[in-house]
């Protein structure tokens, strides 16, 4: 089921005035594979995504197609089809679900078209709305949505943008069990044609939905492989100081 698209990160280092939040990170994200990034707080997971989406400066290489993501600006990366969500959900609270999704598809519109009202609903917006299950809440202001629904809306916005690579930063944090399961199924449905990277602390969720896991620790890749590989890995256990991986992850 694995496709040909991928993001290949080599020797990525992010240096905050001497403090290396990421150091010589090598990791490859493949299309069709739900790839989890785990690691204790401050391990550098968000920083890795920040570097790959132009929010912080990183050295090394991050090849996507014939682009080097590390040399592009945020809006160029976004236009190249690499999208992300943020650790705190950021939807436009006063706009409706429909308007939120519609804005995400607005980059390629002509300036004059922007001055007109929307006529009907563009097909790709309708499709994204149904995929993330918010079609019935179309006209609801995003601000009144439940936490989980806001996260789905963000994923929907990435779908409208037609992001081929999605970085999801702690998307299921704070969700109920049902919402988590629905999110897992949603990811499974959109994964085949995309490269999906999920940052997550919840080991149950990782176990249930991960195809592949990379463990970061102190800015470096500590281990990678299947969930079973990771849990049986002595280096992982050593770094987690003998404690159960789940306890540490939940901190």
């Amino acid at each position: 089921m694995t496709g040909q698209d991928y993001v290949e990160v080599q020797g990525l280092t992010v240096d905050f005035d001497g403090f290396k939040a990421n150091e010589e990170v090598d990791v490859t994200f493949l299309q069709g594979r739900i790839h989890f990034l785990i690691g204790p707080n401050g391990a550098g997971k968000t920083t890795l995504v920040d570097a790959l989406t132009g929010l912080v400066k990183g050295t090394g290489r991050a090849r996507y197609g014939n682009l080097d993501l590390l040399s592009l600006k945020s809006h160029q990366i976004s236009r190249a089809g690499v999208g992300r969500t943020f650790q705190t959900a950021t939807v436009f609270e006063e706009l409706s679900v429909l308007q939120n999704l519609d804005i995400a598809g607005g980059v390629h519109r002509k300036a004059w078209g922007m001055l007109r009202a929307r006529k009907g609903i563009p097909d790709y917006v309708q499709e994204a709305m149904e995929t993330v299950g918010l079609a019935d809440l179309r006209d609801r202001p995003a601000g009144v949505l439940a936490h989980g629904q806001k996260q789905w809306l963000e994923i929907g916005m990435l779908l409208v943008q037609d992001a081929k690579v999605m970085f999801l930063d702690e998307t299921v944090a704070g969700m109920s069990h049902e919402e988590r399961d629905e999110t897992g199924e949603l990811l499974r449905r959109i994964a085949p044609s995309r490269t999906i990277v999920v940052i997550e602390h919840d080991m149950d969720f990782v176990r249930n939905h991960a195809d592949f896991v990379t463990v970061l620790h102190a800015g470096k890749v500590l281990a990678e492989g299947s969930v079973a590989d990771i849990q049986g890995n002595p280096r992982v256990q050593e770094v987690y100081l003998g404690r159960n991986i789940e306890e540490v992850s939940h901190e």
Partner: protein
Amino acid sequence: MSTPTDVESPFLPVAATPTDRRRLPRSSPRLSRDTVSLIGIGVFAVLMLLVAPAVLSDFRLNNLGKYACWAMVAVGIGLAWGRGGMLVLGQGVYFALGAYAMAMHLTLETAGPDAIPVFMILYDPLAPLPGFWEPFRSGAFTLLAVVGAPVLLAGTLGYAIFKRRVKGAYFAILSQALAVALAYLIGGTIKLTGGDTGLSDFKYFFGYDLSDPINKRMIYSITAGLLVLCLLVVWQLYRSRFGELLVATRDAEERVRFLGHDPANIKLVAYVTAAVMASIGGALFVPIAGIISPKEIGAAASIFLIAGAAFGGRATLFGPVLGALLLGYGRSSLSEQWENGWIYVLALMFILVTLLAPEGVASIPRRAAGLLGSLRRPTESRPPRNTAAKETKS
């Protein structure tokens, strides 16, 4: 089995019947709200253009014209501040651009061809007309300047400010400082601009004698018509995708940037539009009030201009215009009996509105309706598919 188009299970909620029924037509209810607003503008136009001239005396109608000028500024403020989140505390600057352009033209027209304005003769009978006054002999140039000057100034200023990502309080202070500086500049250059005394005693308006009430009524109608036009402009902007993007930029600028848009450009459009509205308001204020002076453009005046929008409801379509008309009326009727008293009343009202209805008076009916509605059917306002999750959570 799991292609992106496989959208059926399990995300389509089965239990949410109330919303299912409403889902049939694809058009959104926003459409009808737009129509209602448009009808509202129509009613407002009839009141301003037909009813008011029929029932008001020359004097009252002229006063209403003055408030309408302030209201034009307020409509722009509603756009820039209410929808765009830019706290434009110094719209007096753009009001001044239009007002002084118009005042210079009317002063020269009153003086007559080749003559220099009376106030300049008082200082130095032999002085030539300052270079920057000369083009304002032309009515066409003046009209061009009323629109062009704010576009240029707000365009360059806004570009510099928004590209540098200056926001919030810094932006507010900057814009207010500009208004104060301009008021000082004009106040201090009495030989060039009339200084603190201002420019007044205009006899003609593009060939029309200003002492004839019919002509004043005509100017009122132009003003009221332009105010309605301003409302139509923001009505269209608010319902457009640009309007949605503007609100999105106001609420989460970084997010907008990450969707591939440049927030600076979006803000710039709103800011420049607001500046042009303020300038046109200023230009018409001059023949109506018969005087323009730094008092009308400085800090206090700029706050008065924004107060109307805040009072009425900055983010609503009708709030700023109604708020400004009301404050204008309050200001002149109070200061008729109690010099400067209106400023205390204004301050008091401001406090009350901020405390009781922070989104402005126009939001009160909507809030009340929302409150009543949620009392009557408490379940309806909750996202239907959330119920299952709620039960398990707490």
